[in-house]
């Protein structure tokens, strides 16, 4: 049945062709568009000019990219600071409690982001509970700026991406041999020593995936700053989307997203390096 064998081998070409046509070609087109110029009516005129990249280094755009970068970094850091104790407590809870906690963290995670943003808006609306609380505490605030501001964007980012940090950490801690901790305790190690010498080293892989899982989507986030930030909190995702969907300046948008990808790759490489050095 040699004929059969060769036929089966052709299976792989369908998905590979799909990836080439609908992933590799599109990415190549964006790279090419980044060097093109914008046509009179928003079309693309093919050329080879670095003008889009030069324009991207305007302080206005650099500051937006930097803001996204710092916010994503901060989000990743905050997700770890909250996610680690969360995953730790979760992994050391009783089996029944563990299952409940998994469900409780999976529900918001699998709920559409637009819905969760709607909930945050309801919470911070001018007649919502946050406004009532602030009034009660006699804190002065602008009721109409309450549902659109920088801190709210940061809160939205952290609460959205935290599960992505918790899942890998939990999966790793769930398999972690806690008798090691017990042994260290018997030998008189402090909590801090146990954390830095035993727990964290054995969690490196999970930490790395958590960092990437949070940082990468955070850099390209569009919905959260768009709905919770308003015009004041412009991030890379909004800037790029504006070029593609409103200004119809695709070459400039492509150049910006190319820069975004370069920035992302640098971070990924830096994290990998850091991981090797720790080893």
């Amino acid at each position, binding site marked *: *049945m040699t004929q*059969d064998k060769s*036929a*089966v*081998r052709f*299976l*792989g*070409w*369908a*998905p*590979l062709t*799909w*990836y080439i046509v*609908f*992933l590799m070609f*599109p*990415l190549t*087109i*964006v790279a090419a568009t980044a060097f093109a110029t914008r046509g009179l009516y928003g079309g693309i005129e093919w050329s080879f000019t670095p003008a889009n990249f030069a324009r991207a280094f305007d302080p206005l755009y650099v500051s937006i990219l930097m803001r996204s970068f710092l916010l994503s970094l901060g989000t990743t850091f905050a997700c770890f600071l*909250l996610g680690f*104790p*969360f995953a730790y*407590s*979760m992994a*050391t809870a009783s089996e029944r409690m563990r299952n409940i*906690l998994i469900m*409780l963290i999976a529900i*918001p995670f*699998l*709920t*559409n982001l*637009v*819905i969760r*943003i*709607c909930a945050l808006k*309801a*919470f911070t609306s001018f007649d919502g509970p946050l406004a009532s609380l602030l009034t009660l505490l006699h804190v002065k605030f602008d009721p109409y700026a309450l549902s659109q501001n920088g801190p709210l964007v940061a809160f939205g980012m952290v*609460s959205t991406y935290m599960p992505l940090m918790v899942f890998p950490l939990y999966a790793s801690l769930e398999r972690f*041999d*806690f*008798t090691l*901790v*017990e042994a260290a305790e018997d030998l008189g190690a402090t*909590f801090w020593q146990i954390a830095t010498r035993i727990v964290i080293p054995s969690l490196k892989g999970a930490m790395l995936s958590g960092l*990437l899982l949070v940082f*990468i*989507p955070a*850099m*390209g986030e*569009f*919905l959260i700053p768009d*709905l919770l930030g308003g015009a004041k909190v412009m991030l890379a995702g909004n800037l*790029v*989307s504006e070029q*593609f969907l409103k200004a119809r300046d695709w070459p400039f*948008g*492509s150049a910006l*997203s190319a820069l*975004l*990808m370069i920035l992302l790759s640098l971070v990924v490489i830096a994290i990998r390096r850091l991981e090797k050095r720790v080893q």
Partner: protein
Amino acid sequence: MTERIRPKAPRALQMILPVVLLALYLPLVVMITGSFKGWTLDWYIELFQDPTLFQALLRSVMVATSSATLSTVLAISAALALEKFVFAGRWPMRILSTISLMLPELVLSLSLLSWFSVLHWELSLATVVVAHITLVLPFAILIIAARLTSMDAAVEDAARDLGAGEWEVLSRVTLPLLKPAIISAFTLSFLLSFDDFLVTYYTNGAGNDTLPVKLYALMKSGLSPKVQALSSLMLLVSVGLVILLIKYRPKEGPES
């Protein structure tokens, strides 16, 4: 397996659980309360009387069903080629699959939009399906490939020894064994596609709003009890799905 020793985390650390859960759930509770504003069900009734919402739901279901079906088929072939057969394109496929897994959704969206424009494809639900397949394919491949590697190859060898051809082995031994993974891959693909906002927003063209895009458009024009009612209803569906997924989660192990 007996339960391993799990020393409790320090009290101070455990405090994080209620704090984080409160931060995640309090807004949802406020939203649900808001959907009953004035203590009536009027907002929900209004939802069911809005035909555009029903059309958006229909579009979402259509898109998610087609992209989940097609990506599951592609993922089965990809996983088989990667794990079972000699396949010349193994490394390019691994690399492209990893790239698509790491790519921010935004970059995927805008590159597909550019590509469709270069191809002169008019944006429609068809372009959304194409885009969604690329979006969900790596996840589907991961699930099926994981099952394939943990499967006992001896069963297939036995079938071959008994004279089965490769197609026969595939259709009567391998695929039936893969069934739980295929179901999981389809479910996850469906959920990811159904839930997707950004890729759809970029590739759907005018008048083809799916449910998340429709909800976004409604929210852009202001938060109303009706929007909160729609969100609460969609939240209820995802809670139901999570419970179903956890209850019927495919069992680990060689036979299932």
